[in-house]
């Protein structure tokens, strides 16, 4: 589904060049739930931004279902973001003036799709994530977990090839985080959704099929889950401990 090949990205500050991504290569298969972890500055958010086409890169290629995103113009990038990608952000990015139902509908509103099917789909997703009863409420009137589940439902509105999630549980307590991760898993199970998630939260990452650990702009390690969530969490914590030279870090 997603192919990242030999990706390089750097930032220029004055005369100094900072290499943020160095020869990053990986694949994400259809229906897979993949997390990217790593300490601050390891390049995980930059990687997500490159895949999202929010920023460009110097070398390498990113293929989304064999489509090279770097050659697209503004109009086509917008189309890909709308139809082939779904986004979930740490700060939810819901529109305060719209109800929850209307917020979920936004990707299809942008696409100017017929309202009947749009509403049916939105309600089905909201039902799946347990937020149907708050359909007429406004973002200011619901909890953080509900907001993020709204964002997940919104991300799935156009049946995207890939959901990109940037710290989706970063602003949530553990209970809400579980509910949000539950929503991603539900989407994977029911809709065969492919999710690529950047996170600091080991507990959330432990629900994924695979975790890519990054360090200094490179892939440090890839861990596969065998389906045992507890064991995978232990394994993950060990790797992160090693990554920090035996110290626990904020990834827990």
């Amino acid at each position, binding site marked *: 589904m997603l192919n990242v090949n030999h990706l390089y990205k750097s930032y220029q500050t004055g005369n100094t060049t900072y290499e943020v991504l160095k020869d990053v290569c990986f694949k994400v298969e259809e229906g897979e739930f993949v997390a990217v972890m790593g300490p601050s500055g390891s390049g995980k958010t930059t990687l997500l931004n490159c895949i999202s086409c929010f920023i460009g890169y110097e070398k390498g290629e990113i293929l989304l279902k064999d489509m090279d995103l770097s050659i697209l113009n503004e109009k086509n990038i917008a189309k890909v973001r709308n139809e082939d990608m779904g986004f979930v952000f740490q700060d939810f*990015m819901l529109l305060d003036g*719209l109800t929850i139902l209307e917020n979920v509908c936004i990707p299809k509103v942008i696409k100017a799709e017929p309202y009947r099917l749009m509403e049916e789909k939105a309600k089905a997703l909201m039902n799946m994530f347990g937020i149907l009863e708050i359909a007429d409420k406004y973002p200011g009137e619901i909890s953080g977990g509900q907001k993020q589940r709204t964002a997940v439902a919104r991300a799935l509105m156009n049946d995207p090839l890939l959901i990109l999630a940037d710290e989706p549980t970063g602003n949530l307590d553990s209970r809400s985080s579980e509910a949000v991760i539950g929503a991603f898993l539900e989407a994977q199970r029911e809709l065969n959704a492919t999710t690529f998630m950047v996170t600091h939260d080991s507990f959330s990452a432990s629900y994924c099929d695979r975790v890519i650990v990054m360090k200094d702009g490179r892939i440090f390690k890839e861990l596969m889950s065998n389906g045992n969530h507890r064991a995978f969490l232990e394994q993950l914590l060990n790797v992160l401990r090693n990554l920090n030279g035996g110290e626990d870090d904020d990834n827990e």
Partner: protein
Amino acid sequence: MTMNKVWDKLRKHNQANYRQFKFCISFSVLLISSYLMMLFSPLVQNTLPVGGDSRKQIYMIFGIAAVGCIIFVLYTTGLFYRYKSRELGVFLALGSDKGKLTKATLVESAKLVMGCMAAGIVGGCVTALIIGKIFEMIASEANDNKFALSFEGLSGSLIYGIVIFLLVLISLTRSLGRSNVLEIMNQQRKQEPIKNMVTVRYLALGIAMLIIGVFLAAILPGIVLRATHHHMGIWTNLFYLLALVGLYRIMVYSIASHRRGRNPQKYYKNVISYGMLKFQGRSIVRNMLVITLLVMGGLFAFYYAPMSYSGDKSDFYEAGYHYFYSEDTDEVTETEVREMAGKYGVEIENYREGEFIQIVGDGMIRENFDAKGNLIEEYAERYAAYQCISVSEYEILTGEKVAVEDGTYIMIVSSGSHENLYNQFGTMEKLYMYNSGENVSMEYTGNVIYESLVFRWAFDEDMRCIISDRDYALLKEGLPQEQILRQVLFDTDNNEASLAFSNELYREFVLRMSDNMKVPGAYNSVRHEVEGDDYGYNYPAVYDADNPARETDWRYAPNFIYLSASNGFLQRAVFFLMFLYVAVICLAAVGIVSYTRSQSVGLGSKQVFDDLKKLGANNRYVSRLLKTQVKKVYVLPTAIGCVGMFAFETLLLHQNDGGLDAYEFRALGISFLLTVAVVFYQYLIYRISMRRVTNILGLSA
């Protein structure tokens, strides 16, 4: 690094916000200050008649502009505080003393506003001085008054500045008084949602309040006055406040009420825009209201010129030259007129003369109201010396035949003559014979329209009427020469030299008139006789033989259309220019308020636009959204302002006399064109605002 240095650095960093704040406050004070300087200058004060309509209108528009500017200043202050709040919140979160922080912010703001006040007042004085001197130059031919800055103007400006100063500080103190650090930090992102979902009932009530308010303030007093002759008083203007509340509700509804309704597809097409607007809430509505009021004020001032020209009948006159004089005067004869015209190469056409007699008759005095507001109608046995013409003489003058029975009369009126509370047809019922003092009963039977023979307002002491030849002969018996009037009507061949000829004829006419012709326009010899020394119009006529442009107050003022066309503007130049100035001030304020608001709407929506781009909206989609947001600032306020003011002006004209005449239709036509110009002006500002905000948001590609 001290706190002061930190403040300085932050100020430099936020220069744009400071600049906007300073500009808006200074501009508001400048506008009002220059307005007051103009208004209280001797040029305007000595020109606008005390208690006259024009003076009242100028004050009324000033009220609108002042309130509009105050609301705008409060909005700007709110905007400024939003920028400042995040910094303040961070300082508070890091342990700064709130009292010290509040004090430092207030002192900084106080210094800023005082600087703006000073700049605004100085700018206002300079602007008024420049414009005032230009007015003085333009009007100098017809107006001796000089422009000067006055103590009243300066005090008014200072008072306005102090009001602004206090309002800004009170507003800031209230905002800073919040105890919650997070609330202060989040102020920058805080929206002002319209909390309660507004319903159709809310809108219906708004429309009802608007209609009822206008009805009670503008229509009802007229109806009551006509029906009961009772003047309700100026308190009825308070009902305009009800109309204002209604207008506010209509605007709130336009922003806040969008439902899925019967056309869900359309609803969803615009749902993002609706949501964004709803969350800008009350502040956008307040801005829209200010823009509406200022558009209305500007248009009202613009309409002054066409409305005052609605009384100009020069296009409708049957004769280009018409004047009269008493027979005891050695006035310019036909031969002399022709000789004088010949000198200029001007040809006299269709010269005719006719005779009127001035006969005392009864009438009704309707001028004052009693303490309860009821019109006092007092019958006067000897009311005025009416100007009467015989049927035959009228035919000689006009070529028109009219039938008048003995003992009856027909009034000569203009097409714009309508009855109203004060002016009614046929109030004269008897005329007195000069010799015997016996009266002849006269019955009013109708009107005839002949513009060039209409004397002043055509009613009451200005009435001219046609009577039968027999009555005319009877009433003329023994009449002294000064009571016999010679009416002259003629045209010229529209030669370029007609103006020079008119000037000389005017001069000659003035120099040769008798002393009894040197009376003011409203002079009524009979009332003078009855009231004696108490009579108010017993003062010399105002005219200038060498300068026909000078505005006259003179009962025998001749009417030469070449002079009216040439001098009409000059005579009322100060009025026109003052109203034009007021209109320009209001429209400048409209431009600034609209522009500022549309910038903050655009920039305030940046985060939402960025989010939408991440969700797949392309630049075109976002530009469309931006356009909808910015349009909201312009379209509804301009539409309501323009349609409302035009309708109001039509209503006022209609209220004058219960109908619209040809002159008034012409005035409305010109007013309509001016309204279109204002719409175009708003469109221009909209385009400029859009271009600017599109560039800032990087959507121009």
